Structures are given as C-alpha cells and as structure tokens.
C-alpha cells in the first residue's frame, strides 16, 4: 500500500465504570491499525443489494403480509381484504359482519391517543333525538328511524316543481344496472327502487334548514336501504358558526352546558329495524357511487351557495364590536359544501385539509379573494382504523396513475372515469368481485371506492429493491460539553428501556457512533465478550474502519448492545476534548448507512468546530431585538448536500440539539430538513440545572423511539387537471415536480403545499386531491397509503369566502412567512402576514358586502383571521423586540414547517382554561377516566381573575397561573401546599392527591398531554414568578412592549381596509 495506514486504533470497551481507566490506556496504546481504502468488503456495492438481511423475508402469504401494525387493527380475510372493524374511522366502513354498528360513529370504543377523530357523539342538533340524554352508543337504535320518511317526503315534495321525482333518465339507467346485479335478494329490489326514484332525483338535502339541492349533476344515486341510513343531517342550520364535527373522541352528554356545540355530524344510525337489516347487509353502504353526468342546467353550484351553513360562513361580523368571537371549544374544520353522500366519504380534515373548502374556478377569482390556496396534510398520522387492501392489482388511472377512490365515477359496470384527468379506464376483472360483500359485479362497493383513506399492500412493481430492514444508527456527541450536560445517561437509559419497542422485526439493525474531535465506532460482533471501540482520528477523509459488525442485528446481539448502552455514559466522563467533529461523524454515519438506508439519530450539544461542516458563531446578542440582519439562512451548504446524499440513499437524519449556547440551528437543521428527518431542540439542557428538560427529553425520546416509522418512502400529491402545486412546505426533498422523497416518514410530521389554478375549472363541479404515500413498514412490507379529498368548485367570490378555513389559511401563511423570512427578511414576512389580512378583508368589503357598514367587517368564516395572524406575529418565529434566541426562533420555524396543523395552531394561539372550578359537567369519559372540559377563554388578562387558577396550553409548554386570592381549596387540594405563599417558585408537577379536585385537574392536564407527540412541561407560576413574562407573552390579545393589542391591531387593519 502506498498510503500509510491512518491513525486508527481499536480498544476493548471497558465492561464497567471501573474499567474506564483501562479504556483510556487502551486508546493511548498503539493498537491494530485498520486498513483503509479498498479493503475487502469495505466498500459495499452500492447497487441494488441492500445488505445481506434485506434479501430475506419477502412477505409471502397474507398472514405474513399483514402482521399487526402499531396502531392499526386489521385481520386477514380469505380474500385478502381486511374489512375494517366497525367503529370510529370517520368514513363509513363496510363491515359485513356487524351491520348494526356500521354507521354508528359515536359507537367507537377505540380510544387511542393520537387518533382523535373518533366519532362525535353529538346528538344535540338532531331534533329527533333531542330528548335523549344517555350515551349515544346506546341510543342509536330505533329513534333515528323516525325522521327519514318524513324527510324523504319533504325533499321530494320541495323539489317536485323543478324536477319530478323519477324523471331523471340517466339515474334510472344506473338503477337498472344495480338491479341487474346477480345476487340481490328477491325482497330488496322494490325497497331500493323506491328510494331510487324518491331520493335519487331529489336528494334529501339538509331540508331541516329549508334548503333543497336541486336535482342534478352531482348526485350519487341513493342506495337501497338508503332512507334509514341517510338521516345524517350533516349541515343543520345551527345558530353557531362552528360548522364541523367535534374533534373530541368522546361521547358528550347532551346536558353539556356550552353554547357553542358544533352541530351533530354524520350521526347516521344503523338500520335498527329488523326488517332493514337484511338489505343493509347486502348493501352495506348507503350510497351507490355513480356520478351522474351533468344534467344540463342543473348544476350543483347553483344549489350550493344556498346551504345555510355556508351562508353562516358568509355572515358579516363586525370585528370591532363583537368581542367574543373565540369559540369555547376547539375550533373545527369547516365541512365542504358537498352532498352528504359524498361528504360522508370525504377524507378526514385532520389528515387532509384545504385552505378554501370551496375552490375558486379561476386563478382570477382566487387572486381576487386574496387568500392562499393550499393543502395541509398529515398523511402518516396514527389511525386506529385503516382499511388495508391486499390485492395483486391496484387499480389506477392509466394516464395519470391516480388510485381509484370514492370520487371516481363508474360509467357502467366495466368502466370508470378518473376524477383527476377524466380518462375513462377499464375495470379489471379482479375488481369486479367485492370481497366484503362477496358479490360479483359491484366494483363501486369495493373498499377502495368506499374509503377516502385506504392502505394498499404494494406488489413487487412498487419496489426498486427488496424492502429494506429497519436500520437505526445513533450518533452521540461525547465531547466535554456534552458529558457536562449529562444527556447521555438519559438517552442511553431511555434507549435501553425501549430497545424491545423499537419498531422492527427480526431484521432490525442497530449501530452506534460517538464523536468528539475523533470518531468512535463500536464493533458489536457476535462472540465478543464486550463491545469493541474503534477510533478513527482522520476526520478530513472519513472511512469506515471495518465493513461489518458496526451495524448489527438487534435481536441477535441484544446483550452486547445493552452492555454498550450501560457503559457508554461512563466511558467519557474524564474526557477533556472540547472540539466537536459533527460533519465528519455525519459523513461516517452516512457511509455506514448508505447500503441499506434507515434512520440516523444525532445528538449534538454545541457548535461543530472541526472538520467538514465546522461552523462559526453568528449570533450577536445585541442585535437580537432588531429584525434586520439575523442569520436565518444556513451559512454553509455542507449539511444540505449531505442531506441530499442521505436522501438519495434513503437515509434520514433526526437532530436532537441540546445546547446552551448558539449552535447555528439554521445550518445544522438542513441535515434533517432535506432528509425528511425531524429536529428536536432542548434549550440549555442540563441534567441537574434543568431537570424538567430531562423529563421532556425522556418522554419525547420514548415517543420518538417507539412511534411508527416508514422507510424509503415517497409521496406524490395529485390534483384534478387544472390545478397545480407550486410550492411545498415540510421536511423532504422534492425529487421531481410532484414527488416528495421521504427517506423516513413518521406519524408526527405534517406537510403543506401551495396551489394555483392553472386552467380554469369550467364545467367542473368538484375537484379532487390525492396524496399517495409509498413506504416500507418496519415489518418490511411495501405499503401505499392513499388519501383522497373532494371539494366543490365555486364561481363567486362570496362562496370562496364562505368556505374559507381560517386555521388552514393561518397554517399555510405561517409556512409561507417562514420561507419569506429566510429568503427576504423577517420584517418582510411580518408585513406580508399583515397584508394578507388587510387584502382579504378589503377584498371582502369591496366585492362581497353589498351594504357598506362602518366598522371592520369580516365574513364569519374569517372572523378569527386577524386574531390568528396577530398570534403569528407574536409567535416566537416571527416576533420582534424580544430576546428570543436565534436558535429558538429557528427551531420554532422548523416546527411551523414540520408540525401538523393542530399542533401548529395550539403553539400559535394557546388555549386558556380556568381550572380552579372544574366540574364533571360535560366531561368526557375515556377508559373510565372522567376528563373535565372547561371552556376555552380569550387570551387576555382581563379574563383572568385573582381568585382563580388558569391553565394555558401552548402546545409545547403549559402554564398554570395561580391567582393571588385563589381559593384555598384549590391550593391545598390540587397543589398540595397550605397556602399561596408556600407554592414553590419552580414547581413543575402537580402532586397526585386523593382529592376529587386533584384527580380532575390531573386528568385534564394529562389528557391534554396525551393528545400530542411531544411532552409539554407544566410550569406552575405565581404573580412573582420569573416565568410570568412568558405567560403574559402568550396573552395574544393584550398589548406587549413591542406588539399591538388585538383591538389596536383591528383598528390598524380597519384603517388600511377603509383606505
């Protein structure tokens, strides 16, 4: 060899703390030099063979193909289709075995902490069930049976003038088709023909509010058994504007005391009458999925604006006068103005949400509305109910590759028309058989056509290589600074505890790298009595010291791994090395991982100082306050390039930054951002000085380690021809126009896209969006998760405003503002946010409002828009005039980009509750726990009273503020201290006391915590606490030193609008 061997040594790892000395001695001693370069096996072929483990275990039979996944429950069926267990998922399931439960949204028993869209148990708004006060689970039976016939009639009668029932020939032809299906029981045809004429031509629209949908274009023919199933008053005319289903996963009692109950939503009842059950069994879903061809003048759009709910969204609100606009419950997404049969099938808004639920027909109209058009996605969210389809052919459009979905139209039994590109496709033979009902000739009742969210088991065409094994590599900073913080102890312990819970199978591989100014590898070769450390000190040109045994099978080498994790925290306690070679360590990690792909978790505690990717401190503390010249852009492209390399090899890097000083997260964050990882930031982490952070790290790390994970994923978002996506937000790399490369996908990541209307959507009543996420599960199966959303198209500006989703708009604007602050300046971004409000409200004023009234008018759908934008301006990412540290600001920006909308909204606009008088009234019941539901208060000091205690939930942090004259009982029975004065200064835990108050409060706080993937620290603060300023910072509606109060902000907007 011409090149001298690099300075690389290997040393035996000490088995215990007492052996540390020996390790140090071992490091100093000259040991085995490791050959570098083209050593045999050192250079893994980077081709398609991802390591020895990858070739094995191809899923063979259905049993192997469908192991029970994390939170998904499904059972294999003979046909390979897994009928979903009836219950909570918000789309009607087609469970053949249990007809009585199938439409019962409220009847779900599955309460899992991250899927909060279980059936709403709201029954209040349904007049027929008004007297009921029990749990909706029990009340589903015969009661709702009463109204349908009446409704049916009223609908038919009210529309009779314009369109006589049964007069629609195309409708009838469809019906003939379904009648001709072979296996109809003799008794059913009449019963389904009757609704066919009655409801098919005149849909029973929410006629409670006196509106009818004129018959026509867009109706799905009503189903057999339909009348009893279709009494879902999806859009009742409630006085309250919050239009959507309650998000709460529980049954609320009817005696619930809040005025702002969201309307009952899709509370469809099961066919209760015994006579109906037979037919319901045969026709499990109420709707026949046949799009009607447009019937001349009968356009859906004509009927749409008339729906009461949308009008409610348009009701002008004078923001200067109406002070109490904040709903007292969590604000729900608006329901798209679609026919109920379609809406019932639509994708859950928590997974897929659009800023405008009424899509403007042209770009000109969109421009006029001055609102951003975009989607917010949470595609890999943990779901308790997910239908999984295993079939050899996945039916997709032949030209645009759209997956078949509930919103396609079947022209006849053999052909379907794509709803994205309008190509007519053939229905494959296999698709004719419906495994759920076991009936041939019902392609429109296949689960693919009944569920907007579905998962396919992908056949081998969807694999470029055999599915990779789960590979986890941990990279620890062990410099002096890192050891000082004591994080290694916590991390190793948490990892040790959760080693068995890491998602994976027998192929799971794991490896460790530590680094200071050198890089240490750990050989975990089978047969070694203890792990062997290999030190590479050549950080300029990093190489892997040995080809194998650095990433080892978790199950086969568990003892060695546990041994390493136990000794690791003690090994470096004497280290005096202060340098940090993060860049080279990442390069080494990348080289180690590139043959297989997988996840790298990096723990870093300081600014990387040596080797490639070394950074310099750019923060100038004096300039924190000014919005100018702060360094939001990365200072080097090293991390970005490395991230793209990682992305190309299906490696994702998650960064845990635990640092007291400035660490240039703007540069470091790129490594995660473009490799689809996530960033965690623990400011000033210290095991002694900052114990709350330790708990936070522990809890979040546990979630991180055990949550579901998808490997080598790609996501594609398709939309109807005419719409196009022009900007993507989130952590990924956009590989080609609409293909997002996601080396890892995790259930806690959200994405956003901005769209434009390229060609006008003339003649379209609806548009659809489909996201398809192709990933390898931790069990080594290739799966495709598909979400489809359907939204109506509108032609008038007022309709666009009526369907505006203020939370989604705020979320998208926040994403855009982050981009703007990075590409331009922070003050530019702030101006853009304010202008977004001004422009949209003035457009509304000039184009929609017919009567010019004094004051600041906003459509009811946007009434919270100024408040949310003000909240964004006061959020850490965009605020000025505070001493927010640069890293903290950038971390918040990362969160804006990567958090799903729910959490983003909570971080932007915290919820404030009064908790000293919690009662069980209106409480939720989950697993025998009673969780009180206090109303949400406005974020203003005027809502605080000295004799109360208030909980502010700001997403990643919670404050419990105790008023000076707070009731003695609360202080003693919840906080466990005798009086106000003796509340400790830095109290962060609620003691678990035996009192009812304590149980209630703790139940409420832990319920809030359980709903999110991160762990909010609870700070209990008094009047003189140092954290009081943080608490007051979150009082969005109040004036702070540098920011306007809500009222001042409104006045400012009014001034600009009236200009």
């Amino acid at each position, binding site marked *: 060899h011409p090149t001298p061997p690099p300075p690389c040594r290997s040393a035996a790892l000490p088995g215990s703390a007492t052996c540390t000395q020996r390790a140090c001695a071992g490091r100093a001693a000259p040991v085995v030099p490791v050959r570098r370069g083209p050593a045999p096996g050192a250079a893994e072929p980077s081709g398609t063979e991802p390591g020895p483990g990858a070739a094995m275990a191809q899923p063979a039979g259905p049993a192997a193909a469908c192991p029970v996944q994390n939170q998904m429950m499904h059972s294999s069926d003979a046909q390979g289709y897994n009928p979903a267990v009836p219950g909570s998922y918000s789309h009607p399931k087609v469970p053949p075995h249990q007809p009585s439960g199938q439409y019962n949204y409220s009847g779900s028993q599955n309460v899992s902490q991250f899927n909060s869209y279980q059936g709403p148990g709201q029954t209040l708004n349904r007049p027929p069930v008004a007297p009921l006060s029990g749990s909706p689970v029990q009340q589903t039976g015969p009661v709702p049976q009463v109204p349908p016939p009446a409704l049916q009639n009223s609908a038919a009668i009210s529309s009779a003038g314009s369109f006589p029932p049964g007069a629609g020939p195309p409708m009838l032809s469809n019906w003939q088709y379904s009648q001709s299906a072979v296996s109809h029981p003799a008794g059913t045809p009449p019963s389904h023909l009757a609704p066919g004429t009655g409801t098919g031509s005149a849909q029973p629209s929410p006629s409670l509010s006196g509106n009818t949908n004129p018959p026509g274009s867009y109706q799905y023919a009503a189903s057999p058994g339909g009348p009893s199933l279709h009494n879902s008053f999806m859009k009742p005319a409630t006085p309250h504007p919050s239009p959507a289903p309650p998000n709460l996963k529980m049954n609320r009692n009817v005696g619930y005391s809040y005025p702002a109950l969201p309307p009952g939503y899709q509370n469809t009842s099961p066919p209760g009458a015994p006579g109906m059950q037979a037919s319901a069994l045969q026709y499990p879903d109420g709707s026949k999925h046949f799009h009607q061809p447009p019937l001349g003048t009968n356009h859906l759009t004509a009927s749409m604006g008339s729906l009461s709910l949308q009008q409610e969204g348009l009701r002008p609100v004078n923001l200067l006068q109406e002070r109490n606009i904040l709903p007292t419950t969590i604000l729900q997404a608006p329901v798209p103005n679609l026919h109920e049969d379609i809406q019932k099938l639509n994708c859950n808004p928590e997974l897929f949400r659009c800023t405008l639920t009424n899509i403007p027909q042209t770009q000109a109209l969109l421009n006029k509305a001055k609102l951003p058009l975009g989607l917010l996605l949470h595609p890999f969210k943990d779901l308790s109910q997910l239908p999984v389809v295993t079939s050899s052919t996945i039916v997709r459009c032949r030209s645009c590759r759209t997956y078949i979905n509930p919103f396609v139209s079947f022209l006849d039994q053999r052909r379907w028309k794509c709803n994205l590109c309008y190509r007519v496709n053939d229905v494959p033979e296999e698709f004719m058989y419906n495994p759920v009902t076991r009936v041939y000739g019902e392609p429109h009742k296949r689960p693919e056509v009944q569920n907007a969210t579905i998962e396919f088991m992908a056949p081998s065409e969807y694999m470029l290589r055999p599915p990779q094994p789960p590979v986890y590599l941990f990279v620890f900073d062990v410099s002096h600074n890192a050891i000082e913080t004591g994080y290694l102890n916590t991390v190793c312990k948490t990892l040790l505890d959760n080693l068995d819970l890491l998602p994976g199978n027998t192929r799971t591989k794991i490896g460790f790298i530590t680094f200071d100014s050198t890089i240490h590898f750990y050989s975990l070769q089978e047969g070694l009595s203890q792990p062997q450390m290999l030190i590479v000190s050549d950080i300029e040109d990093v190489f892997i010291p040995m080809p194998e045994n650095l990433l080892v099978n978790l199950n086969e080498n568990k003892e060695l791994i546990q041994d390493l994790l136990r000794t690791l925290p003690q090994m470096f306690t004497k280290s005096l090395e202060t340098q940090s070679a993060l860049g080279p360590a990442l390069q080494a990690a990348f080289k180690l991982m590139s043959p297989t792909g997988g996840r790298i978790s990096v723990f870093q505690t300081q600014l990387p100082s040596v080797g490639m990717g070394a950074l310099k401190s750019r923060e100038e503390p004096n300039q924190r306050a000014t919005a100018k010249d702060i360094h939001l*852009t*990365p*200072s*080097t*492209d090293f991390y*970005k*390039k490395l991230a*793209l390399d990682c992305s*190309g090899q299906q490696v994702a890097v998650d960064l845990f930054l635990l640092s007291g000083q400035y660490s240039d997260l*703007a*540069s470091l964050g*790129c490594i995660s951002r*473009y490799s689809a990882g996530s960033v965690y930031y623990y400011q000033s982490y210290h095991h002694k000085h900052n114990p709350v952070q330790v708990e936070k790290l522990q809890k979040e790390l546990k979630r991180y380690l055990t949550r579901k994970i998808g490997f080598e994923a790609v996501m594609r978002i398709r939309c109807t021809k005419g719409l196009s996506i*022009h*900007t*993507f937000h989130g952590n990924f*790399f*956009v*590989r*080609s*126009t609409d*293909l997002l490369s996601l080396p890892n996908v995790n259930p806690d990541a959200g994405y956003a896209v901005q769209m434009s209307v390229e060609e006008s959507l003339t003649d379209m009543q609806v548009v659809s969006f489909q996201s398809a996420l192709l990933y390898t599960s931790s069990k080594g199966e290739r799966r495709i998760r598909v979400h489809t959303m359907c939204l109506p198209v509108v032609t008038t500006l007022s309709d666009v405003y009526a369907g505006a989703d203020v939370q989604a708009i705020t979320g998208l604007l926040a994403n855009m503002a982050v*981009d703007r602050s990075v*590409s331009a300046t922070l003050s530019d971004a702030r101006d853009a946010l304010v202008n977004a409000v001004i422009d949209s409200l003035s457009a509304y004023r000039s184009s929609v409002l017919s009567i010019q009234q004094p004051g600041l008018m906003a459509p009811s759908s946007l009434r919270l828009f100024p408040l949310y934008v003000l909240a964004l301006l006061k959020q850490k990412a965009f605020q000025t005039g505070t001493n927010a540290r640069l890293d903290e600001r950038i971390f918040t920006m990362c969160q804006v980009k990567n958090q799903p909308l729910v959490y983003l909204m909570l971080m932007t606009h915290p919820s404030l509750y009064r908790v000293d008088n919690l009662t069980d009234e209106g409480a939720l019941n989950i697993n025998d726990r009673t969780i009180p539901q206090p109303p949400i208060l406005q974020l203003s000091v005027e809502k605080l009273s000295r004799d109360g205690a208030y909980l502010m939930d700001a997403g990643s942090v919670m404050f419990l503020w105790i008023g000076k004259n707070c009731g003695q009982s609360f202080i003693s029975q919840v906080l466990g201290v005798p009086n106000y004065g003796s509340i400790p200064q830095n109290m962060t835990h609620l003691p678990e006391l035996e009192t009812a108050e304590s149980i209630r409060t703790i139940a409420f706080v832990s319920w809030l915590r359980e709903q999110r993937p991160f762990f909010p620290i609870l700070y209990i603060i008094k009047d003189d606490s140092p954290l009081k300023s943080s608490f007051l910072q979150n009082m969005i509606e109040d004036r702070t030193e540098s920011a306007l109060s809500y009222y001042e902000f409104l006045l400012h907007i009014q001034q600009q609008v009236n200009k």
Partner: protein
Amino acid sequence: MESVVFIFSLIDCCALIFLAVYFIITLSDLECDYINARSCCSKLNKWVIPEVIGHAVVTVLMLISLHWFIFLLNLPIATWNIYRFIMVPSGNMGVFDPTEIHNRGQLKSHMKEAMIKLGFHLLCFFMYLYRLSSCPSSLV
C-alpha cells in the same frame, strides 16, 4: 482587426446559444421528470460560471473595441448574470438549488430566463454576422 473581434464574438455567441439551448433542454427534462432535481442542478451549476465568463468577455471586448451600441446592449444581461451569481445565499448549492427549484415557480422563471437569453443571443449572433460581413477588411 474588426473582423477578428466579430469572428471571436460570433464563436462566443454560438457557444452561448448552445449553452442556452442546453439549459432549456435540461430544465424541460426536469419539468417532465426525465431527470431528478439533484442531477439537473449539478449539471446546470457547472455551466453557470462559463456562461458568466463567456458573456463578460464579449461585453468587455465590445467595450475595448469601442462598439458602444453592442456593449450597451450586452451590459444588462452580463450584469444580471454576475448579480445572480453573487447573490446566491450562502446555504444554497449554486444558482440552481435542487431543494428550491420546484418551489415558488422557480423552474418556470429559470426557463423563462433561458428563453430570453436564447433570443438575445440569437439576435446578437445575426448582428455580429451582419457586422462581420459589412467589415471593410472582410475576410470574404
């Protein structure tokens, strides 16, 4: 002398035309998903500096040879090229950044820019050709 200047300009202009066509082809390949953003951008970034230099040379040459009109015609585009090259943010991987090229219509604006340059260079090409043929000491 004059003819030498224009012969050189003509050759340079040809090269720039080819470069503009190459840019357009590569960008439209990206648009049609034939290549991925990473390889597209690394291909294009390689040619950004040659383009800047190539155009700057012609511009300077025109200044030296005192062809004021042609110099002024070239100046804005040459300045834009240099400006664009200098203003690349520190974290980006060049004028064409694979992580951003699909965002905010960047692909379209790059395409538009390449088209405009192509048109401009074609115009210049014929102008140089005309000047060359009308040179008193023409080689012809």
